């Protein structure tokens, strides 16, 4: 019984965290996920690199 409850709790936590990850992919501001490093020099460098190299799809 304890194992079942633990599984349900873990699966539910995974679903909530995964949904946050999914939202990260559809938001321009969170293009690189909802990460703690957003705003760091590396993030800005990557964002500029992407703007320079890749163009949006028609």
């Amino acid at each position, binding site marked *: 019984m304890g194992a079942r409850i633990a599984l349900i709790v873990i699966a539910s936590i995974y679903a909530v*965290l995964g*949904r946050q990850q999914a939202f990260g992919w559809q938001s321009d501001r969170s293009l690189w996920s909802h990460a703690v490093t957003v705003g760091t020099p590396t993030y800005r460098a990557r964002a500029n690199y992407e703007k320079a190299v890749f163009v949006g799809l028609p």
Partner: protein
Amino acid sequence: VKWALLVVALAAYEFSPLLNAGFVYEDARWLEASDGMTVSMADLTLQRAPRLLTRYSFSWQRRAGHSPLAFHALNLALHVIVCALVALLVSEVSSLAVGLCAASLFLLYPLNMEAVGYVSGRADLIAAIGVLCACLCGLRGQWIGVLFGLGLGVLGKESAIVGLPLVALVRAMAYGRKSDYVASGVLASAVMAAAWFVAPSEAVWTPTWAGLQMAAWVRHVAQTVIPIGSSVDFNYRALPVSVLAIAAVFTAGLSELAWRWRWSAPLLAGGLAWMLIAAMPRFVAVTPHSLLNEHQFYVPRIGAAIMVAHVFRVKPCLA
């Protein structure tokens, strides 16, 4: 049945944001590179056409005028197939109930979202299908099937070549034979050598590069246990050399533990070894724009699903 319904409901909740998701990061580059693609026998080489199957699927969907939703739906369908294969693999070395639990957790695992929600991550999904098919066939001694699985995986993404040592590894876990462990080690070394000599490196290899990749590997293993603080742009290059050295020692330590536990806890050791072997070629193949990230860790993370079987203390049933 109740568990299956719960998993389906949680999966629907988790993946529903993809309904409105678009294309991000390298999607534009891969999709445009696949436009108007035709397949001929001459293309069936890695040098001429890397990720042929993945690109052909993009080309087909673009020609058919599919929306981003259809691209994401196909990725999700591939992820479900991977989970079914994970269930079969874990069932082979444990029990059906444990296999279904491991596959359910792998389906919902939050850091797998990058491979599923990122259309270019399809390459990793196809690679995983190929590797798992090869492992399942390898367990039954169906060597033609092993070749087919590896071929399928490599046509999805070249990194699926790690399936070679992984086939030997799952045989070692299931049958407990020393020769399979030796074969796994030899084949893993061969794949490392291939990555060193054949893989197109973007820069000169340095020990620092290996340290950065090992730091990334350690971070991904830690996040496999506690999946929080995720970032596809973690600033590894800001880490001091001492931390990279510690990461290298930690990686070596976990390898040693996997070797020591191979008889007493084969599933725990095997899962750990899987995560290491599946990522090892990236320690030597230099791709400076892309340190080991979450979608690249999709295949290695299958090792964690195998470790779930150890948590339930179920002995390999084929031994």
